[in-house]
């Protein structure tokens, strides 16, 4: 190897949105630098200005087709604050929670089965034509059937609460526009037994995979970091819909705890780098060098004190036992954490469906108008922040969005580099399978690059190899 090289993986596949990876190799063939680039820009934060406040939850959910409910609800929470509503009627809050649990469930199921499971079931370096959901269905038809029906169940919950499976209109400022009819409730309840069994089986599958491949999991893009999540006010339990901000360090020590999320801009800073449209947030008190952190299912397992549903909490204890009760840092453990949350959502959905408040008729509260609103939620991929200012005419004048994948930007880049060093350094030939290992690391975060840049699209991957002078010398592109 006499000359430095640049590898480009473009597009990254089986993730949401468009991105590319560039890997710089030095003259000896060692990985010098590796980056995940988000190369799209959509500008939601700009063009939402001038729109009317009650339109916002409906408009911004169009950021994404995978987890629009997260944006819908985060924006609705911000608008609750603007219309002066600090406490929703019980029916409204519970309908929104039901919508959110359905959303997290279907998104996690989609990610695990449709996007990630081919890597785990067939191996990272299996032939590319093998690594897709259709091969999973062909080889394990029952698993494939459950994947489709579990996702459908989550989507049915969304439809029951928002009117449509994708991009509905359920949450409005100060409340919700519908309750849950008894017949719809009963139709959902009839499926819950299967959902719980299947969630437990899927959880066992990923747990067993992790324990069987412990060395791989512990050595694959595993590095310490801090973690950020909402936790329930008071007791620090997992709460995907509402709570206060908590950040823990790599040993589980508190960086800040039970912080009111409307102070997020005092706690977090968004850094900008020239080569990506995705920002790099960091914890202000730790500075740009040490202040990066991760969010998402694993971050939540690490940050919360407990889960308030028994099956999911027992599963969480098993996950944490792998690191003696300390935070679990292995990036592939995200899959385990994700399936724990699927089980948690099923348990929560069961409790909510038995709650008569869902048939209540007090749907909307009113209050005294404010100029500013901040809504924070734990989306499937992690913490999600929506911040708006609205003028006296009800028109938006300012918008700032920090989405889960943006929180994870530094972690994603470090994971790309860690795997590139492991798989590509000093290799005379770069194979497609090696490049897939880079994608496996990216995929573990379940990134939504569309949301991160507020951009729309399928998720292609580009890998470029550059020489030391920055000239592209090799290039691989994957179509979406």
């Amino acid at each position: 190897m006499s000359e430095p090289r640049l590898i480009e993986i473009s597009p990254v596949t089986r993730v949401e949105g468009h991105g590319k990876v560039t890997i710089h190799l030095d003259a000896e063939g060692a990985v010098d630098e590796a980056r995940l680039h988000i190369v799209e820009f959509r500008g939601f934060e700009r063009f939402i200005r001038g729109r009317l406040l009650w339109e916002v939850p409906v408009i911004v959910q169009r950021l994404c087709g995978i987890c629009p409910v997260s944006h819908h609800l985060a924006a609705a929470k911000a608008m609750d604050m603007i219309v002066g509503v600090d406490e929703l009627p019980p029916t409204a809050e519970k309908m929104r929670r039901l919508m959110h649990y359905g959303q997290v469930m279907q998104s996690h199921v989609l990610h695990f089965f449709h996007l990630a499971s081919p890597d785990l079931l067939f191996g990272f370096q299996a032939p590319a034509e093998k690594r897709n959901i259709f091969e999973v269905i062909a080889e394990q038809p029952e698993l494939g059937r459950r994947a489709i029906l579990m996702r459908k169940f989550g989507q049915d919950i969304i439809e029951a609460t928002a009117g449509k499976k994708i991009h509905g209109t359920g949450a409005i400022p100060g409340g919700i526009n519908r309750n849950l009819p008894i017949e719809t409730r009963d139709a959902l309840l009839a499926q819950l037994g299967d959902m719980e069994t299947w969630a437990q089986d899927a959880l066992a599958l990923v747990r067993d995979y992790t324990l069987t491949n412990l060395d791989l999991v512990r050595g694959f893009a595993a590095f310490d970091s801090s973690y950020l999540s909402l936790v329930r006010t008071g007791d620090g339990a997992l709460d995907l819909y509402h709570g206060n901000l908590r950040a823990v360090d790599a040993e589980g020590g508190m960086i800040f705890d039970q912080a009111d999320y409307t102070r997020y801009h005092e706690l977090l800073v968004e850094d900008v780098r020239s080569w990506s449209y995705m920002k790099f947030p960091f914890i202000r008190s730790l500075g740009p060098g040490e202040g990066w952190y991760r969010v998402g299912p694993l971050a939540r397992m690490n940050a919360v004190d407990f889960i308030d549903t028994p099956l999911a909490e027992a599963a969480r204890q098993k996950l944490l036992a792998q690191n003696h009760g300390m935070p679990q840092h292995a990036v592939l453990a995200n899959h385990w954490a994700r399936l724990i949350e699927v089980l948690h959502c099923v348990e929560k959905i069961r409790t909510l469906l038995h709650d008569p408040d869902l048939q209540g008729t007090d749907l909307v509260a009113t209050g005294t108008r404010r100029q500013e609103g901040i809504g924070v939620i734990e989306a499937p991929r992690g913490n999600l922040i929506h911040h708006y200012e609205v003028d006296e005419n009800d028109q938006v004048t300012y918008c700032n969005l920090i989405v889960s994948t943006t929180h994870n930007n530094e972690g994603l880049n470090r994971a790309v580099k860690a795997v590139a060093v492991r798989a590509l350094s000093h290799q005379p030939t770069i194979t497609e399978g090696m490049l897939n290992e880079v994608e496996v690391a990216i995929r573990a975060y379940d990134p939504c690059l569309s949301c991160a840049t507020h951009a729309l699209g399928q998720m292609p991957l580009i890998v470029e190899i550059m020489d030391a002078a920055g000239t592209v010398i090799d290039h691989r592109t994957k179509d979406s």
Partner: protein
Amino acid sequence: MSAFRFTIDGVEIAAEEGQTIMEAADEAGVYIPRLCDHEGLRHQGSCRVCTVKSDGRSVAACTQPAAPGLVVENESAHITKLRRDLVEMLFHEGNHLCPICEASGNCELQAMAYRLDMTEPTKFPYLEPCRAVDASHPDIALDTNRCIACGRCIRASLDVDGKGVFGYIGRGIHRRVSVNGDNLADTDAAITDFAISNEVCPVGCIIRKREGFATPIGEREFDKALIGQDIEAKRDD
């Protein structure tokens, strides 16, 4: 007043002297598509969506008087195509982003597109207007990017409310609805005006503040039936 009969698409219609083709058709349960015409407002005949062939001549059914023995063609393939093109041009003239519009499901333009099988507007170039939303009034906002210049608000405000809040400005393709002042807050518009009621503006241009998206999907007017089916339900056969 003398009674007479004429036919629409071969169906015999009873009419009385002074009735328009559309009035007689409505009473008989025959729907003729329309956008600028609305019950309780004087006829204007400007949108041309109600165009029919009357004894072979193209006329606006909302303004053309019915006459004994007329042979009217309403839902032929030729006329439906003309109507679809007219509706499609309205989509191209404005910014009709149904997925984020609070009128979606209650919008007569959207409902007409569904009735006429307009699956997507693709034939003509988009004009992409970029007009600022007028949200100056405490209870009402105007997004004229969605205006189809039907003039229903003009007639409602002038003839029913006795105010004249709205009027046309410009000519030809630039003709559009404006308010009688620098902005809506300068006018005497009130949320209780008939012109501001949900039934007058057929699209999402006149916005009653803080009411958007309160009706769930599935319960909006055109979630339940195609536009015009309320009239067709009156038909005997």
